[in-house]
């Protein structure tokens, strides 16, 4: 079916119509300009007024906090206007984020005087998602943990909400922060977290990691690989000793199909080099059979952290066989702190001067032992790092 194109035709518009149209457009434009300018002026005036009010309220708030034995918040807030109450709440938000200790406790009483804690509980029970998040932030700032059933009933929809709920318990330093915190974060069908969630997982487990380890031992294989990696990352940084913890899930994760999980599993053992029983369960031959260089690099770093003779021997053996450049650098970095400068560098019977190895590494036509290049690169890096940090030496040289 063909398309028929019609020729353009000129249409004569009466001048009266044009004049009216121009007048209407000009009027509209003028109205828009007037409304915009008026609104801007009003907003600027309101902002100036708020800035002035805020400065007065800030001064009064700090004066009551630091200048009196008792701040007497109730009497103060009962005489404030709506705008002033709004500004005080905003100031309270700012100061609670910066203060700790007795001052923060006294400021939290201001939140109670403003009714924020009760409002937050209502919002968690009846509010929408963003209202609940907002309410949880306030409760964390006020260090005020609500009833646990309120959190478990209304705050499990998303990883962000789970983390915000657990954060309230952490901020309030409740005795059940580890157990209930792990229930909130990893109960049901959890998904991977944002950085905030990972940090919260670490914080709730920091002093008592057992609930996390028990949950992981039971559920690790049901989680997605991103969450598995995150839990292993947190485990790596938990240095609270739990001698009797079940780490079979971490040992199993060394054979996980996902390289990033295997890599995180190796690093999770960083703090457990002392645990002979656990180390007996770790097959170091896995490193030689590992196809992913990033995973081997993680394994080398963990062995370097253990730093005993068994780990050192394994690393020295790998120095002669490691085929990947980046993994070699990780290997050299792990071995260097364990190395005695009087000894030959790993893989050599005699000492090799740095200049020889570096010159060979720079010359692409000369065959070079790549581990030597990685070794001397690491050596230089460590030396310059020490020099940069040695304030005393530099001050003396001046």
């Amino acid at each position, binding site marked *: 079916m063909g398309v028929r194109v019609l020729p353009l035709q000129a249409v004569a518009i009466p001048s009266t119509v044009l004049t009216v149209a121009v007048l209407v457009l000009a009027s509209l434009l003028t109205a828009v300009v007037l409304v915009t300018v008026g609104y801007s002026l009003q907003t600027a005036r309101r902002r100036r007024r708020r800035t002035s009010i805020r400065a007065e309220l*800030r001064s009064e708030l*700090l*004066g009551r*906090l*630091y*200048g009196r034995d008792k701040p007497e918040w109730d009497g103060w807030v009962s005489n404030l206007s709506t705008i002033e109450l709004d500004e005080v709440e905003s100031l309270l938000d*700012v*100061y*609670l*984020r*910066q*203060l*700790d*200790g*007795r*001052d*923060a406790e006294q400021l939290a009483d201001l939140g109670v005087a403003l009714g924020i804690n009760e409002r937050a509980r209502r919002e968690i029970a009846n509010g929408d998602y963003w209202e609940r998040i907002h309410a949880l932030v306030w409760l964390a700032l006020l260090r005020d943990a609500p009833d646990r059933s309120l959190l478990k009933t209304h705050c499990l929809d998303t990883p962000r909400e789970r983390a915000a709920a657990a954060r309230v318990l952490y901020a309030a330093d409740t005795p059940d922060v580890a157990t209930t915190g792990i229930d909130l974060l990893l109960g049901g069908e959890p998904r991977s977290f944002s950085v905030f969630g990972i940090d919260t997982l670490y914080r709730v487990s920091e002093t008592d990691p057992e609930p996390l380890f028990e949950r992981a031992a039971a559920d690790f294989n049901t989680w997605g690989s991103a969450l598995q990696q995150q839990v292993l990352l947190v485990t790596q940084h938990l240095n609270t000793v739990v001698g009797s913890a079940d780490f079979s899930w971490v040992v199993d994760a060394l054979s996980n199909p996902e390289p990033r999980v295997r890599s995180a599993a190796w690093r999770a053992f960083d703090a457990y080099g002392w645990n002979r029983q656990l180390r007996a369960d770790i097959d170091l031959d896995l490193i030689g059979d590992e196809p992913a260089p990033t995973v081997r690099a993680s394994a080398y770093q963990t062995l370097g952290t253990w730093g005993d003779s068994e780990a050192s021997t394994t690393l020295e053996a790998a120095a002669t066989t490691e085929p990947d450049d980046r993994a070699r650098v990780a290997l050299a970095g792990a071995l260097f702190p364990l190395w005695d400068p009087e000894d030959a560098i790993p893989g050599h019977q005699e000492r090799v001067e740095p200049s020889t190895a570096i010159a060979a590494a720079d010359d692409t036509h000369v065959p070079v032992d790549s581990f030597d290049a990685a070794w001397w690169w690491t050596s230089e890096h460590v030396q310059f790092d020490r020099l940069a*940090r040695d*304030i005393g030496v*530099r*001050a003396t040289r*001046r």
Partner: protein
Amino acid sequence: MTKSAVIADDDETIRSILQYKLSKAGFDLTVCHDGEAGREALNDPNIDPDIVILDVMMPRLKGTQLLRIIRRGELAVASDVPVIMLTSRGREADVLEAFESGASEYLTKPFSPNELLVRIEKLIGA
């Protein structure tokens, strides 16, 4: 004898807290809004602080850089003046970097102003 302190922090909230708390404790204060202003204040021979309080992350000059400049004796202020780092950066590497740069104390935000005062008094022997 009046004690004096130099504060360098780009956060108005922190400055207001420190001003209130240290003024109440009898300190004469020089308050700076960034690291470079702090460097200028500490290079002023008329300002001889008993204590210096620095934020780490500040515009124009980082607190740890300023601390290294102080410790190297490049400013008019005594190179061994007690310096407290007050920062939201609480990772082990940050704390170690600050102490390696010559910090006398390291406090992380949120912080307790009462604890800060006790540490100041301990450092200056008040």
